[in-house]
């Protein structure tokens, strides 16, 4: 057994002793991955995993380092990038990944990706054609 694997085993025992909590956050993440394009809110997510919403936020942040809301936004932005690369219009991409306002989508996209959806799509298409 390598030194590294011994350390990994120690971290596993120290940081992840609670199987119930792990099942809750992993289950929540899977649910988000499969339903991110629909309307998702904390009340609903907490009911899915039979826990309070404040407890869910704490657990999700503890295990994944970000809140469920932040994760949903990241997931939607990643998916939107993929759609924009395929040539899907900005408005269609916005609605398809679960955002409900193209204007706020563009603002959010620029703040996360660094360029507007329009600029991102132009660059992606240009790179593809080179």
């Amino acid at each position, binding site marked *: 057994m390598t*030194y*590294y694997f011994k350390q*990994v085993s120690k971290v596993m025992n120290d*940081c992840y002793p609670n199987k119930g909590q*792990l099942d809750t956050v992993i289950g929540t993440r899977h649910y988000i991955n499969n339903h991110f394009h629909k309307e998702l809110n904390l009340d609903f997510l907490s009911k899915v995993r039979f826990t309070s919403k404040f407890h869910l936020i704490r657990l999700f942040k503890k295990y994944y380092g970000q809140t469920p809301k932040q994760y949903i936004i990241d997931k939607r932005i990643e998916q939107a990038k993929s759609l924009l690369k395929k040539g899907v219009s900005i408005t269609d991409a916005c609605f398809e990944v679960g955002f409900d306002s193209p204007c706020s989508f563009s603002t959010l996209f620029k703040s996360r990706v660094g360029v507007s959806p329009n600029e991102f799509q132009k660059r992606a298409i240009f790179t593809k054609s080179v």
Partner: protein
Amino acid sequence: MKVKVTSIPVQDQEKALKFYTEILGFVKKVDVPLSEHSRWLTVVSKDEQDGVEILLEPAPNHFEPAKVYQKALFDAGIPYTQFNSDNVQLDYERLVSLGVEFSVKPTEMGTVKIAVFNDTCGNNIQIVEML
């Protein structure tokens, strides 16, 4: 500032290029000769060819401390870096079938599943799947 390139020290650039492209499935992006024995050689993920480039740098051959550091990490089984995987178990099986040696078989560790393999160029590399 932006992150465009990160590097992995390799003992043999040609051998590394073969391993990272033919075994791992990366794609060569930039290959510029710098001297008789070294190149600016980068690869990218096939699925994210506009993503971060990995510089396969021959540091262990030119700078003794780099060689010592690389060997110390390798001997302890510590990964030099890690790549994300959609399915660690499938990647593990595919790589084993190609003769890749793993020091850590697919192992669940809280919210991730990890595995560690030998890149044949002096490094342990970890693959990680978010659960």
